[in-house]
Each structure stands twice: as structure tokens, then as C-alpha cells.
């Protein structure tokens, strides 16, 4: 007894000492860094922090040189930008962490559509509508004709319930289209002309897939998950999902509904289930990462692949070539039931409310991204002397030392990538095919560097796609969406793997998160 008491006393004492320790350290942070947005002269910002993922050239790939080069181009060359580069796969964890405390919040951050809507609705982002309307880029006349579609998708509801623009995308979001290998098509007894440029129905399309499955005795589609990680979610298997919506959307009557609980989704899940059972879709899709799925396509373990359009069309082709496979890919038109491919809402550059001089940052950092000159070149192609150059020299890539390419003085050319010297640098943050604005006088220095395959496919996609519709975020949505999405993904995986029928799946979904869904719907329809 006595010993126990002593033990307890020991523990108690410790706790007390620790608690008292914490009492000293308990300085609650007073928040509310309200923007002092009075009408005033826009001054050049002295320094600010920028948080980006790996879509900006990584530091192992000459990122530091890009920073230095960019610094010389912006303002009078004294703007001090502190770059924060978290790991790619953990990017949004890092963003979340950074937003945890006011002192760690970056001034500028690149956000995907979902996070953009979330943070905008929570009041973390600076409203740049006015700045954008007065911006040079908007009034330059160089914006491409689909630019408004992209930028309209960035109009989201903020704290005050008004739709405003809280971020800016310098490029289109791009999306996925379906590529079919010519060899597989022919092995299954079909001709290229049967599919190219034609609008198939789902039944026709599925028959082709089944023929391929029979002919090759292998799965035909190995996708990167049955469900994509971000809106529009259904983009890796569009032909199967067709019009089904993964998340909440505004129905024809103007009310928001839960796309996942609709009949379309049930049908879509049944189609996927059948396809998995028929061996058309790879059941390992549930585990696949994008790179896994790509690898299977390269290794000829799959013959049809729905993947990003534009530059990727070229990359897929070259990868197949290096594997010694027939590289001819046919990008098929969206099938009849699908109507059109969906373009993702582009990631947006946002200024947080933490920034001291948001007007200055917008003017000197964001507005210049598409200046049609040197800065845009830097964002599209990288740093001069590291990623591209215009001086007279001969360029060789590693492994092909015997085939140098000679360039004359003043001729724009890409250099070997610092990280992967076996190939030339392709692009920096802004994909030249997807840029929202053209160069001044139409003089894109790197126009030559874009391959025809990529360009053709990019145009093909632009003609066959519409931009996804953003879902407004509400408090209830923010609190419940991760549970709801988790359950959606579980149901998709279960149904696809044939554990339950689609109808049972939807029923289970409703019984598990139905009340959360209702709560979100109520807030959306308020």
C-alpha cells in the first residue's frame, strides 16, 4: 500500500511539474492578421515566402538556379523570395501544417482545386478579384480563348458567401484522355480507322476491350486507382463512369445533390464491376499509383490507358519506344455516353492573408508569370544557362554523346536536364501547351521544343473537353468530406472487386455516411 502511494505520489509530482511547465508556455496566439487593404500605391514587396509542389522545377533539377534567374527578372532584382519545397506526395500535409500556425503560414501557396476551395472558404486567402481585373495580363489581349473557362472555375465562395477569385492559374488544368495501343487493337482484329476520330458507344467500346482481353489473355486497362485523388475523380476511367459524379454537384433544378448516391453512379459501379470480372480492368488498380499504372502500360501489361493529354502523349510514346515496343497510340474521342472529357480545375497560385503586401506580390510575382516575355519564358522553360540557352554551343545528352546538336548564337534551345542528363529539359512549371496566355507577338521561344505529338494531342483534348465545375466549400463540408470520401472510395473498391453489388454498395454508403451527407447537403442548399 505504502509503496503504491509512493509510486502514485511520484507520478503525481511529475505531472504537476510538467503541468506547471506548460502553464508558463501557454501563450495563446492572438490571431486575425487582417489585411490592411486601403487604396494605395502598389509597392514592390521586399521579401515573401512561397510554397510549391514539384511542378516547379525541383531543387535537384536546377531549382536554385531558377530562383536566382527569376530574382534577376522580377522588379528591380531585389525581391527576396523564400521557397518552401515539401515533398511531392506529402505536399498537402505540409500545407496543412503550415496553415496550422500564423507564423508558419506562407505568403504565397500553390493549391489544388479542393484545397483552394477549402482554404478560400475558411478565409485564409486573399481576394485577388480586383487585382486581377486591373492586371496587365488580363488586359494584354494575349489570353487564349478558353482562358475564361479556366478562370471562371476559380470563382469560389469565400467567407462572406460571395463568389470571388482567390487564386490564379497561369495554365489550363489539363485532363485525361484515353489512349489505345495500335498493336493491341490490331491483335483484337480491329482497325485504327474503327476508333480514330469516331464517337463510339459504350457497347462498341467495351466490345473492343473484350476482344483485346481475349486476344492478349491479359487485362486491358490498369488504371491508377478506380478513383482519382482529386476532382473530377472519375477521370481515370471516364468511359465507365460516364456522367456519374463522384461528389456533390448542382443538379438541373439548382439544388445540390450527392452525385455518389445517384443512379448514374450505381450503373457506373456495375459497369466497372463487370469489367473487372471480365478481366478487362486490372484488379490491382485498387493499389496502383499513377506510376504503377504507367509502368504496366510501358511493360505492355495493359493496352488501353486513360492518362493526361498533351505532353504526356509524347512521353508515353517515347517510353514505349525505349522499351522497344510499338509506340503508336490512338487517342480516342470521348465515347457517346461520356460526351466530353473533363478538364481538371487548374491548381491555383494564392496569396494568403498572412502576406503583408498582397497587392505587391500579385503585381510583381503572379501577374508577371504570363508577361509574354522573359518571366514567362522562365516559368515555362526554366533558368537561362541551366535549363535552356541561346548561345552558340553543341548539346549532347548522356548516353548519346556521339550525336551532338549544334546551335547557332541566339538560337533558343533546351539543355539536358540537370537531374536526368539522359534527356533534354522539357518544361518548368507552366506547360507551354497549356499556358493561358501566348507570348508577345506570338514569339514563343520554345515553340520548336514542343513535339508535334504533344501539340496535336493538346489541341485534340482542348476540343474535346470541358472544365470541371468547382464545388463550394462549407464548414460542414470541410469537417465531413474526408470521412465521406473515404467511404466512397471503400465502396468503389469493394464493388469493383466484386464483394457486393453496386446497389448494396450505395445502400451501405448511405447507411454509413448518409447523415453526414445530409448535413453537407443542407449546408450547400442553404
Amino acid at each position, binding site marked *: 500500500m505504502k509503496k503504491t502511494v509512493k509510486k502514485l505520489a511520484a507520478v503525481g509530482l511529475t*505531472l504537476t511539474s510538467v503541468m506547471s511547465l506548460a*502553464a508558463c508556455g501557454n501563450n495563446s496566439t492572438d*490571431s486575425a492578421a*487582417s489585411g490592411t487593404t486601403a487604396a494605395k500605391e502598389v509597392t514592390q514587396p521586399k521579401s515573401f515566402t512561397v510554397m510549391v509542389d514539384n511542378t516547379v522545377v525541383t531543387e535537384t533539377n536546377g531549382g536554385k538556379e531558377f530562383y536566382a534567374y527569376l530574382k534577376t527578372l522580377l522588379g528591380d532584382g531585389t525581391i527576396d523570395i523564400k521557397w518552401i519545397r515539401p515533398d511531392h506526395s506529402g505536399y498537402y500535409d505540409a500545407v496543412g501544417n503550415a496553415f496550422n500556425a500564423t507564423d508558419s503560414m506562407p505568403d504565397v501557396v500553390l493549391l489544388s482545386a479542393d484545397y483552394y476551395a477549402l482554404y478560400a472558404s475558411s478565409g485564409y486567402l486573399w481576394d485577388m478579384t480586383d487585382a486581377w481585373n486591373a492586371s496587365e495580363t488580363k488586359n494584354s489581349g494575349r489570353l487564349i480563348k478558353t482562358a475564361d473557362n479556366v478562370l471562371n472555375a476559380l470563382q469560389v465562395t469565400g467567407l462572406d458567401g460571395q463568389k470571388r477569385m482567390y487564386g490564379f492559374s497561369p495554365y489550363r488544368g489539363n485532363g485525361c484522355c484515353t489512349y489505345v495501343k495500335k498493336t493491341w487493337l490490331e491483335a483484337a482484329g480491329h482497325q485504327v480507322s474503327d476508333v480514330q476520330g469516331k464517337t463510339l458507344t459504350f457497347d462498341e467500346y467495351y466490345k473492343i476491350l473484350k476482344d483485346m482481353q481475349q486476344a492478349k*489473355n491479359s487485362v486491358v486497362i490498369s488504371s491508377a486507382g478506380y478513383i482519382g485523388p482529386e476532382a473530377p475523380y472519375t477521370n481515370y476511367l471516364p468511359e465507365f463512369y460516364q456522367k456519374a459524379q463522384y461528389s456533390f454537384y448542382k443538379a438541373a433544378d439548382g439544388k445540390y445533390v450527392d452525385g455518389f448516391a445517384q443512379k448514374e453512379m450505381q450503373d457506373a459501379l456495375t459497369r466497372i464491376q463487370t469489367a473487372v470480372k471480365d478481366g478487362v480492368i486490372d484488379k490491382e488498380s485498387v*493499389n496502383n499509383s499513377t506510376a504503377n499504372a504507367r509502368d504496366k502500360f510501358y511493360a505492355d501489361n495493359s493496352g488501353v490507358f486513360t492518362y493526361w493529354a498533351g505532353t504526356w502523349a509524347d512521353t508515353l510514346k517515347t517510353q514505349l519506344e525505349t522499351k522497344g515496343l510499338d509506340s503508336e497510340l490512338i487517342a480516342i474521342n470521348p465515347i457517346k455516353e461520356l460526351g466530353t472529357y473533363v478538364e481538371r480545375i487548374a491548381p491555383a497560385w494564392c496569396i494568403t492573408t*498572412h502576406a503583408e503586401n498582397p497587392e505587391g506580390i500579385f503585381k510583381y510575382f503572379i501577374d508577371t508569370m504570363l508577361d509574354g516575355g522573359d518571366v514567362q519564358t522562365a516559368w515555362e522553360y526554366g533558368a537561362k544557362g541551366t535549363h535552356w540557352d541561346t548561345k552558340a554551343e553543341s548539346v549532347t545528352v548522356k548516353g548519346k554523346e556521339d550525336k551532338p546538336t549544334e546551335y547557332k548564337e541566339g538560337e533558343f534551345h533546351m539543355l539536358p536536364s540537370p537531374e536526368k542528363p539522359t534527356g533534354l529539359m522539357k518544361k518548368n512549371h507552366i506547360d507551354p501547351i497549356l499556358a493561358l496566355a501566348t507570348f508577345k507577338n506570338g514569339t514563343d521561344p520554345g515553340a520548336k521544343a514542343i513535339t508535334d505529338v504533344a501539340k496535336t494531342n493538346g489541341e485534340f483534348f482542348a476540343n474535346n473537353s470541358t472544365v470541371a465545375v468547382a464545388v463550394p466549400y462549407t464548414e460542414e463540408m*470541410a469537417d465531413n468530406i474526408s470521412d465521406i470520401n473515404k467511404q466512397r472510395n471503400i465502396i468503389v473498391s469493394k464493388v469493383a472487386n466484386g464483394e457486393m453489388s453496386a446497389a448494396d454498395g450505395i445502400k451501405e454508403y448511405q447507411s454509413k455516411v448518409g447523415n453526414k451527407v445530409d448535413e453537407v447537403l443542407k449546408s450547400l442548399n442553404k
Partner: protein
Amino acid sequence: MQCKSCNTELPKHAKVCPKCGAKVSDKGPQNLKVIAIAGAVIAFIGGLLPFVQNTGDVEKAYSFMNIQMPVFWYLYMIALVATILLCVAKKEKLSIITTAIAGVIFAVAFFVSPFAEYAGRQQGKGGTVINKYNNVMLSDLLSNGENGIGMGTFVVIIGLIVAIIGVFFDLLKYFKKEINVDAKYMTNSINKSVWSMVYYYRWFYVMFLPALIFVLLFNYWPMLGLRYAFTSYKITNPYYIGITHFHEMATADIYFWTAFKNTLYLSIIKLILNTGAAVIISLLLHEISNIIFKKTVQTIIYLPHFMSWVVTASLFRLILAPSSSGMVNTFLAEVLGMFGGNPSNGIFFLGDPRYWVGSYFVINVWKDTGWGTILFLATLSGISPELYEAAEIDGANRFNKMRYITLPALTNTIITVFILNLAKVMNLFESVFVLMNDAVYDVSNVLQTFVYYKTFGGGRPDYGYTTAVGLFRSVVSGVLVIICNYASKKVRGRGIV
């Protein structure tokens, strides 16, 4: 000073006579002043009362801990803890002083000092900001949002009064006749003053300092963070909401109970299987007479233990893949002719809930059985060979010997291993984490993975909620350890902690 019983000259500060062992103190045996302790505990609970609100409605959720400078609260609680400790240490006269201090702090807080108090959040520029109500008096805080003097105030005052008056009443006197000095404490050192001992051991304190700092920082500080279990902590600015999270956990959360059930199921079955397999292997291994062969086998079966879970998972994902790259499915399809000869139609071991659990156990047995044999082998090598010889003379065959000599000798070790590992069942994380995916979420999600995904899996995490789940896990885990410790003491005479 001299000993009363044997008249020996006593050393300074002696509490016990070194010669005859008689207690030197002339005071009679003392009892704990239970009433005083109870009073302090009541006052302490009164201080905790604002936690007990079952509402997420922030407008009404007044709470002590939302005040901007909870310094009075801390001082008050510390004073009460000191009171309890002083009572336990039989210095109850001093405890009156600390109780009085607690009372004074309380009075100051109650009448004089207004608090700036946070009550709820509001969406504002710069994210969610916390509404501040200034000039809130302690009386408001204690009354839990009601007007006038609330319950909490009475509880506190009654507690303090009982704590002071209780000092003068010896309740235990009526239950116990006498308490003797514990002989265990009668060593020579008792006769040295504490300070001379501290001086003698001064360097040891320095030596312990690093470990102390680390334990305080990385073990105790997080415990303090458990208070977030009672807060809503979404991205920034935690504020207290009482036991709302626990209520939601128990009633509304669709994953929590499954996760809890899975944790117990996976880890206990795993424990049984691993231990069983280890016992069988050890028994068989013990029968091997060729030393070199035995050593080699041992070396091989210990190997998987050194592979991280990441490596193990990669290995098995490859082997169990339902395609031509998966060895097992290829074997089943091409050699045994299952699935129509096509490995792609094979069993999706890690993506099918019906097979995942089994695969998980098999992988665990593969990885840990060998390592688990070490203890059993050590026990087996300790069995006297004479026992076997005697049995052999009695005509026992190999299996009789195993049945009647070897196995009984192992029983104690089996129980030990079981108890040691039972204490760890709530810690299940990495092995599941690296093997799970959405398709098998229902059977593979355990508490730790649940906490991980809920916090780091996107959306807007509520650290408060996941802390609450973690607190639940810690408490269950702690109770398990204590039970195991008790069992261990019963079975083998010593505890595990």
C-alpha cells in the same frame, strides 16, 4: 540522543536505531488523513468541472481553459495537488497552508481578477478567429454558462473547507489498530540525512539529467497534449468543448468501433498464431542433433526479423500479386491449373477482404516466428538431460518425452511471452499500415491507422478528435499493461514494468 530501548548513542537524524532496530521517533503511528485528501480531491474536481460539458455549441461552452491566461487555474490546481501530496507525506499541518493558498487564489480569481475568455470561434479574415469575451469573472466560468453562482463554485468551496477541517480528523484510526514500520526501509542509509545522500550521489543526478530531459520532452510533454482531446482543434486555435469528441466517438463515428475491434482481433489472433508457431518450431528445432544444421536453420529463420515492415510488404506485394508477376498465383495457375491457368484471374490476396486477414497473419508468422523461438529455445536448453535419460529408461518414446517433459517446462515461458506481448496489442500500426488499402479498409483499419488517416489524410483534420481517439487507445493500452503486469506478478512473481 540515545535509543530508548537499548540506550545506544544514536547518529544524527536517525529514525531507526542501528543496533536494535527500534523506531526512534516518539510519535505514535499516524494514519492518512483521508478526509482532508477527499476534500482536496473534491476541490480539484470542482476545478475540472468546466471540462464536463457535452456540447459542441461554442456559444454556450464557457470553460476555464478557454481563458486567455489560465494562470489562476494552474496555480489553484497545483496548490490542491500539493495539498494531497502533503497529506500523503503525513505533513498535513502544512497542507492547511496550501489549501488556504488555493482558497486565496480562488477568491482573488473569483472577486478581483476578470479574465479575457475565448468563447467559440468565428470565421474571419485570416482564418478562423476566436471570439473573445473580456471581463469574465471566475464565477461565470465556474457556473458553466449559467447566470449567478453555479454548481462549480459550491463544489470548490465545500472541497476547500473539507480539506482544511479533515486534517483534524483521523478517520482510519477506527479501522486500524497500529501500523508498523516497514522493515524494508530499515537500511543503513536511513540514518544518513537526505541531503548528505543527495550530495554523495550528486554526479548520478547529472548522469540522469539527459534521460530525464528526453523523457520529459518526448514522453511527458505529449501527455500534456492530451488535453486537446477536449478541444476542437481544426487547423488553428484550439478551444475547449468538453467531452463532445468522446460522445461522438462512441455514438456517431462509423469507423471507430470497427477500428477498435480490428485492433484487438488482428493483434490477439496474431499473437496466438505467432506464439503457437514459435512453440512448435522450437520443439522441433530442439530435436535436431546436428549442431551445424541447427545453427544454420536458426540463422535463417531469424533473418526476416531484421527486415523492416516496408521491405516485408514490398516483398509480399510482389509475390502475392494477382498477375504473372506474382509467384504464388503463377504457381497456383500454372502448376496446379487453377483459375483456368491464368494467374491474372488469381486470388487478390492483399486486395480482397476475405483473404487479406489470412495473408496478414501468414506474413506475420513468416516474419516473427523465427525470432519468437529464441526464448523457448533458451528454456529448452535449460532442461536437464537427466530427465530425458530417466524417461528413456522408463521406456518413453520421443513424443512421450515431448509431451511429459518438454512441453510442461515450456508452459511458464509461453505464458511469459504471451503476457509480454499482450501488453503491446494496442500499438499495432506499421505492419498494418504498409499492407492496407481502400478495398480492405473494413478489415484492416486499426486505431492507429485510423488516427493517422484521419489526421494526415486530407480535408480539415480535427486534432482534437484524433487526440481523443488516441487518448482512448492510450487508456485501454495502459489498462492492459496493468492487467498484464498483475498477471505476470501472479504467474512468475515479477511484473513487466
